[in-house]
Structure formats: structure tokens, C-alpha cells
């Protein structure tokens, strides 16, 4: 059945329908290799020249019982011949490997969309496990969709019949069969996937490698014959116009890890990264452990508090201390972060937010830790808050956080979220050598050294690391004399130190880029102001609305605290300001409190990202009628 000789993606492309973009969703059991299948489709789409965004939708359980709805794993990709900003409001095409996957994902497919199901998995037991009383393929409940039942299981077994694999192993190839079919549907090249299979399995087990390639090819061949069927088309998604250069895909986790490694190089200072396992923040640690050679030392601490304290100890010792977690872990770190504020040590804290409160929805996304970042500590304890707006931006913001933390001797909290952490997008690889160096200086001169004497410009104290002759000194969490650092209970000193800490953080506003308008005019009827991962849906919504002629602009904040100095004046140029957030209005409250203006919010806390349509509707309701 092998037909690698016809790996021509253009074959059978004669009467394909052209699409500007398409959203494909794969769904199946955790054990079906859904994420791997999605990953391969992503690579194939990137190589086909599309822009894209992907998002995995894992179940919270690691290995839920086979065939159950709570064991369904899904992967969505939005790819196109134009710039892609989100993983897509809804899918145009769903591949469902079992009834549970169909049941939990059908409402995520556009009406009329293509739904390919493995009908070989729709037996009475499979249906029962998914909670179907009657077979949905037969009861007319799926009439609104273009459902194509294919016995993928049987066809896979046939395709790999001569592989010598047992039935269980042979059936494992069905994700590649389905991938082959979807490759045909969208005219993707199979060769890189075939190569990848060879690399992954070939060395260990040639039979498994061959069976998977055979399945891939068989699925593709099946597509060619299906073409004869009504309502089953091939599509063509043209190349996107992307800035030229070398690309790779990047997730938010990758972005932070690579950004911290870059920060180590740019500062010529070791990074010590300490964290405790927590969803969805752990991918950063998993990536960083592979970057030891690049000046990053990792430490899996005994708990969240220890992770923060190890990072603080490392900063005291002369490295760049970084700790990472999600909301519940950040709560535990609160006291330690206060110590870093008090001792005036650099510290980078990454919060990959999830839906809360308490344990909340660990695998779902939210932006509800902004108050925690700003205010979640005892005392007046200001720090700097940044928020990357995409997976690739995590790279940039890891570097920016390091720059501010080391220049101002202050903790910097970086707010990412579950969406940014796991979504992936193509990334034009930057030239790190051309990025500005981050000068880090350690005090050497004992002459006149006072531990809490400040640079008049930045208000930062000197960074004097243990081991430096003549600079032995003590720091601690008890209020320090504003020069010597000795314990001081003097009332005027506490006022002075509180004012210094406040002014130091406020002063960072002079050292960040002025706020720009991402899209649209600098004055107008309505500005949509977002932060973090809402960037994609807001951007697309504003693009669409502007194409319709609506007077709307998009402003996206990446520096949340301190706010850019020009922001208030910028917002004054708009009749209305709308702040969409995946929380109940936290940035909204901050902006209202800062500028005392009646801005409006748009709140969504379902654990799901905003849909483009939701933002469009909110803007329309304010500008039309």
C-alpha cells in the first residue's frame, strides 16, 4: 500500500475550493495521539506557507477511562493565507475518533462544517460510554453538519495488514490514517511527516514506522477516491504573506524558556530558575531543564514558597532569580515576594494564570490574577507587572522583565495565561546578537559603600554580591535604614523607605515605550483596550469591524504597572473605552482608579478565550444603533 512515490501535495488539486483560512479540530481519547497529530498538521501547514495559531485542549485527568467524555483530548489549528490571530472561534472541520469526542466537540464546529467520524468506534458500548442512548449518526441530530462517517479503524487495519503488528499496535496507526486524509483535504505535503515518523520510530522499531507511514498514505489515497463523493471536497489554503526569514513554532512556555536563556546571555549573568510543579506553568520548567548549557540553572523546589525563596537567595547571591507558577502558587509566594521588594533584589516571577479561585479550573484560561499581581501582598509592596500578548511575546517579555528587575533592583511579575502557555504560532526567529545588551553591574568598590544608598536616577540600590571583598553587609525583611540598611524603627525612615519603593516602581514608567495604538486611529469613537492573551481575538475583531467602516481602535497594554505615561491622554482621545478581560473587570478597575473615567468593561469567565464574534458584538452594540 506504500506509495511514497506519489507524495505530491498538488496531486488531485484540480478543482479544490480556495479558502482564506480554515480551522481544523482533532478530538479523540487521550491515548489516541491527538496532540501529536495536531503537531504534525501544524508543521505541514507552516511548511505550506500558512500563518497559523494552534491550541491544545487537554483533559484535566491524565489517563481517564477510554471512551469517556472527560478523557477527550482535542487540538485546534487555525491556518490561512492571511495573518492568523487566534486558534479560531469555531472549527470548519472536526475529526472525531469516538462518540465521546463527537459529543464534546460538535458544538465547537460551524454549522455546515465537515465532521469526519471513525464509525468503526460507534458500537453500542462506545456510545454508552459517551452517554449516547441512540447513535447520533443515525438519529438525525447531526443534520446541521456535513457528517462523513468513515470506518477509520477498519481501513487502518487493512492498510497495515502486512506490517506484522498485532491488532492493538496496528490500531494505534489510525491517527496517521486520519492525518493522511486531512492532508489530502487541505493539500498538505506528507513527506515531512513521513520523515518525522521514520526518525521517531524507525530506529527502535522499523515495523511500527512503516505501518504509520502506510496508514498516512492510505488515508491520503482514500481522500483521492472520496473526491468522487458529493459534498466532499479538497480545499486550497494559499500561502500567507509573512515577513521573510527563518521561522519556527513557539508556545508561551517555549517563549519564556528561550527568553530567559537569552536574558542570561544579554546580561552575562547566570539565571537560577526555581519552581514547583503546577498546571499550566510547568512547561517552562520542562523546557528550561534542557537549557543548562546556556547559563540557566533550574531547581524543582519542595514547594511554591521554597521556589520563590531559592530564586531570592540566588538573586542575593548574584544570579538572576526567577520563579514561576500559576495563581494558587503565586498566592503562596506572596510573603517571599514582599521580602524581595523589601530587600530590593531583582526577581522575575512568571504567573501562568488559570481559572480560579482556589484550585478552580487548572487547565482552563483566565486573566483573574491581575489584582493579585498588583496588590496581593502585605504592606505597601509595589512591583512591576508586565503581560505578554502572545506566545512569541513571552520571549520578549522575559527579557524585558529581566532588564527592569536588574536595573531597578525590584521584582517583576509577568502575567501569562493558560492560553498563551499552550498555544503555538510561527515565530520569525530574532537575531539575539542584535538585541540591546542588558548591562548588569555589581558593586565592587568598598569606598563609601552604603547598602541602601540609591542611584538618583533609577532609585535602585547597588547590587553587592557575597564574595566581594569589603562589601559585607546585612539585609532583611525588617525595615532598613535608608542608607546603612541596619534595622530601623524610626518613623520618618519608614515613611522615606515606603516613598522610595513607590517612586522607584513609578519611575519605571519613564523607561518603557509610550503606549501605541495597535490598529486604527489615535482618536475616535471607541478604543478597545486589552492586555495579555485577548490580543488575538481583539485584533481580529477590530480588523473586521474596521473593514466594515466602524471607527474603532485597538490598544493593547504590555506594561500594566506602572502604566505607560501617555496612556491617560491617549484614552482621552476616544469617546468610549471598552476593556474586554477574562475576569470581572480587573484592568478596568485599575484604569478607572488611575484616570477616574467611566470606561466600560466586557467580562468573560468561562475558562475559554474570547471569541472574535463576542468582541465584535460588544463593539457593534456601542457604535451602531
Amino acid at each position, binding site marked *: 500500500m506504500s506509495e511514497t512515490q506519489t507524495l505530491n501535495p498538488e496531486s488531485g488539486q484540480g478543482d479544490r475550493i480556495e479558502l482564506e483560512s480554515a480551522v481544523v479540530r482533532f478530538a479523540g481519547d487521550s491515548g489516541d495521539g491527538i496532540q501529536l497529530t495536531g503537531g504534525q498538521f501544524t508543521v505541514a501547514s507552516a511548511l505550506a506557507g500558512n500563518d497559523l495559531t494552534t491550541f491544545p485542549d487537554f483533559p484535566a485527568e491524565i489517563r481517564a477511562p477510554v471512551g469517556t467524555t472527560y478523557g477527550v483530548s482535542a487540538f485546534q489549528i487555525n491556518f490561512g493565507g492571511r495573518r492568523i490571530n487566534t486558534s479560531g472561534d469555531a472549527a470548519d472541520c472536526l475529526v472525531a475518533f469516538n462518540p465521546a469526542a463527537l459529543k464534546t466537540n460538535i458544538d465547537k464546529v460551524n454549522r455546515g462544517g465537515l465532521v469526519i467520524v471513525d464509525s468503526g468506534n460507534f458500537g453500542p458500548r462506545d456510545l454508552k460510554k459517551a452517554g449516547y442512548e441512540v447513535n447520533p449518526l443515525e438519529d438525525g441530530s447531526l443534520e446541521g453538519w456535513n457528517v462523513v462517517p468513515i470506518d477509520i479503524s477498519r481501513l487502518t487495519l487493512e492498510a497495515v495488514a502486512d506490517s506484522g503488528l498485532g491488532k492493538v499496535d496496528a490500531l494505534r496507526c489510525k491517527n496517521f490514517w486520519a492525518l493522511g486524509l486531512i492532508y489530502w483535504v487541505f493539500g498538505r505535503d506528507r513527506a515531512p511527516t513521513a520523515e518525522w515518523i521514520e526518525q521517531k520510530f524507525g530506529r527502535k522499531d522499523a515495523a511500527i514506522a512503516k505501518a504509520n507511514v502506510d496508514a498516512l498514505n492510505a488515508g491520503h489515497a482514500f481522500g483521492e477516491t472520496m473526491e468522487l463523493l458529493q459534498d466532499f471536497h479538497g480545499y486550497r489554503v494559499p500561502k500567507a504573506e509573512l515577513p521573510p526569514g527563518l521561522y519556527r513554532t513557539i508556545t508561551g512556555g517555549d517563549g519564556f524558556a528561550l527568553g530567559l536563556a537569552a536574558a542570561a546571555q544579554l546580561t552575562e549573568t547566570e539565571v537560577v530558575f526555581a519552581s514547583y510543579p503546577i498546571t499550566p506553568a510547568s512547561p517552562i520548567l520542562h523546557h528550561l531543564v534542557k537549557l543548562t548549557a546556556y547559563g540557566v540553572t533550574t531547581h524543582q523546589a519542595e514547594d511554591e514558597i521554597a521556589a520563590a525563596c531559592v530564586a531570592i537567595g540566588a538573586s542575593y547571591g*548574584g544570579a538572576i532569580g526567577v520563579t514561576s507558577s500559576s495563581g494558587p502558587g503565586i498566592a503562596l509566594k506572596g510573603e517571599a515576594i514582599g521580602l524581595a521588594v523589601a530587600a530590593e533584589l531583582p526577581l522575575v516571577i512568571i504567573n501562568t494564570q488559570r481559572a480560579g479561585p482556589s484550585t478552580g479550573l487548572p487547565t482552563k484560561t483566565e486573566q483573574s490574577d491581575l489584582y493579585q499581581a498588583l496588590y496581593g501582598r502585605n504592606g505597601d509592596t509595589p512591583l512591576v507587572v508586565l503581560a505578554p500578548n502572545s506566545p512569541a511575546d513571552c520571549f520578549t517579555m522575559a527579557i524585558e522583565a529581566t532588564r527592569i528587575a536588574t536595573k531597578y533592583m525590584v521584582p517583576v511579575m509577568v502575567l501569562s495565561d493558560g492560553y498563551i502557555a499552550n498555544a503555538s504560532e510561527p515565530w520569525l526567529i530574532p537575531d539575539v546578537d542584535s538585541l540591546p545588551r542588558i548591562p548588569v553591574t555589581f558593586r565592587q568598590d568598598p569606598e563609601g559603600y552604603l547598602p541602601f544608598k540609591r542611584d538618583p536616577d533609577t532609585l535602585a540600590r547597588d547590587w553587592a554580591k557575597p564574595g566581594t571583598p569589603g562589601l559585607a553587609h546585612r539585609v532583611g525583611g525588617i525595615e532598613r535604614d535608608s542608607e546603612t540598611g541596619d534595622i530601623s524603627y524610626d518613623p520618618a525612615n519608614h515613611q522615606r523607605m515606603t516613598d522610595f519603593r513607590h517612586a522607584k516602581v513609578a519611575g519605571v514608567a519613564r523607561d518603557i515605550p509610550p503606549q501605541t495604538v495597535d490598529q486604527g486611529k489615535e482618536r475616535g469613537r471607541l478604543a478597545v483596550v486589552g492586555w495579555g492573551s485577548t490580543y488575538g481575538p481583539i485584533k481580529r475583531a477590530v480588523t473586521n469591524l474596521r473593514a466594515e467602516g466602524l471607527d474603532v481602535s485597538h490598544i493593547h497594554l504590555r506594561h500594566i504597572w506602572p502604566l505607560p505615561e501617555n496612556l491617560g491622554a491617549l484614552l482621552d482621545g476616544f469617546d468610549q473605552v471598552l476593556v474586554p478581560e477574562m475576569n470581572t473587570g480587573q484592568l478596568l478597575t485599575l484604569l478607572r482608579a488611575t484616570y477616574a473615567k467611566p470606561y466600560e468593561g466586557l467580562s468573560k469567565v468561562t475558562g475559554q478565550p474570547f471569541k472574535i464574534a463576542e468582541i465584535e458584538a460588544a463593539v457593534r452594540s456601542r457604535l451602531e444603533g
Partner: protein
Amino acid sequence: MNAPTTPAKLTPKDFATDQEVRWCPGCGDYAILKSVQKVLADLKADKDKTVFVSGIGCSSRFPYYMDTYGFHTIHGRAPAVATGVKMANPELDVWIVTGDGDGLSIGGNHLLHIIRRNVDTQILLFNNEIYGLTKGQASPTSAIGTRSSSTPEGSVDAPLDPIKVAMGAGARFVARTADKWIKEMPDVLKAAREHRGCAFVEILQNCIVYNDAVFGEFTGKEAVPGTYIHVEHGKPLLFGGGRNEPPVKGIRVKPGTFKLEVVTLGENGISEADVLVHDKTDPVLAGLLAAMTGPDFPVAFGVLYEDAAPVHDDSVASHKADARKKTPDVSINALLKRGRTWMVEGPGA
């Protein structure tokens, strides 16, 4: 302010700061401070490479009084901060000062983990069996029945034994001393500093205000002969003679059991040859010695256990060295291009 030059001969004063020491008059902490300063002077320690890290509590004010680098952190977390200091710079000589509440209650978890990782530090746990700084509440080491501001009718919770906790966590150096063993304490501290790895030292410390004289019977000048024993590696476990008197008792394994027993020299034909010789590399013996309490047994002081094991600092360093060896090009530009990449040609390409 601090002269960078190290004089040929150092005195304890060279390690003292200009800060007024604020412990209660008569507090056992003073003697410990003096002893540590003396040890560092005797060992000609480089104060610029010495760091004291503490948590919260009376004992944790210690770093302010040491003219070395010092970090007074937050309650219970000194071991974690110290681990970070060592990860940034393994060359530093890092001492952790903690107490029974700080180290065994709020910070118990960190204590366990710095020990099991074997981070090359010295942990001085000042055990006064009470919370001093918060005004006298029962602590995790308070004996059952301790009357305190939080347990007026006497505490009901069983106490932790710091040495057992440390050994349970896998400590490779365990010692016990007391504020009142002014002559003996420096040798214990020196041994702790010389040990590569995490050295755990329990220091019985008298809180004169809230828990006075809990250790009075078996520590210091007024100690009752027979209530304490100073153990030394390779020497028989003899005691009971009082200060400057020859010993009259010994410790041996009770025949037919796994227990220790106290024997009197010269009684029932017992001689020094029947007495156990202290082997600090024997963890079982260390456990038995640590568990000895009155009135049937003397309380053991000295280095109870020491046996080298791989040190966290070295493992981290060799991991780094291996990674560098395996990665010929450590530029970030090379790193970013690793794995699957693709070229997007410009328009007209």
C-alpha cells in the same frame, strides 16, 4: 566601612558588627554568638565569603551581629534562601541560623529538603523549646505539659526531636551542643563547618525569660554528673564523673537486645573494655545516642553522626559541566534555530 584586608590573626571581635545586640540579658544566644565568632576567627574564615542566613525569631537576629554577609529572611524559609545563595555561588560558606519554631514548625518542610539534598551549609538550630519573640507560646519541641502563654494548662502535643527529624531526612552530619557548653561548642561548630554537605547542629539554648532552665540539669557548669555525655569518635562512651573527674559510667549494648544500657565501671566486673566505642559513621548508633534522655540515660552531646555523601553543589556543578560539554555552540542564536525551522521567502523571491 569594612576593611577588605584580612589581618594575619583574627579575633572574635573581627566578626562582630557595630549593631547593639538586642537579646534579653542572660539569653543563651549570646554564648552561641561568641562561640561562632571565635570559631570563624580560629579558622581564619574569610568574612567576605561567609554568609549567615536566618528566618524569623530571636535566634534569627543572628546575622545582624555578624560582620559577614547576612540575610535575615522570612519565617521558616532560611534553608530555601540559603539553597538559592549556594546555587548562585557554591564557593560561599553559608550558615543557616534557625530556631525550633522557625525550623521545625513553619519551616519544617524546607529543613527536611535542604538536608535530603545535602546542600553544603551549616544549620544551627537553636532549640529553646519555646517561642520567644512572640512572647512565650509552646513550640514543636516543648515537652508535654509545658505551661506557656498558649498552653496555660500545659501543652498536650508530643514534641519533635530535632535530631531524629534531621536523621529521618537523611542528614549526613548531626551534632548536639548547648549554649552552656562554652568549652565544647567550638569544636562541634568547627566539625560542622569542615563537613562537606549539610551539617545539622542542634544547640540547646536557654530562654531565660519564657522557658528558663529547661536544660539546666544536664548542661553547663551546674549540670548534674551522670546526666550528660560528650561523645567523641573512636573513644569509649564514658561519662558520669562530673567536670574534671574521671568517668564512672559507660554505655554498652544490653546483651541480647538492640538497646543501650548504662553500666557502672567496676560493678559486676564491668571495665572500660566492655563499653561501646563511638563510631560516628554508624547511623544506628547515632539514632540510639540521640534518643537518650534522663533519668535513665545521659543526654548525648558532640558529633553523633558524620558520614560523607554526594553534595548538592557538586551534582549541580557536574550537571552544568556535562551540559556544556554536550553543547559545543552555546549561543542563543544557535539554540533558537534548533529543531524544525522553515524559510519564508520575501516577495519576488
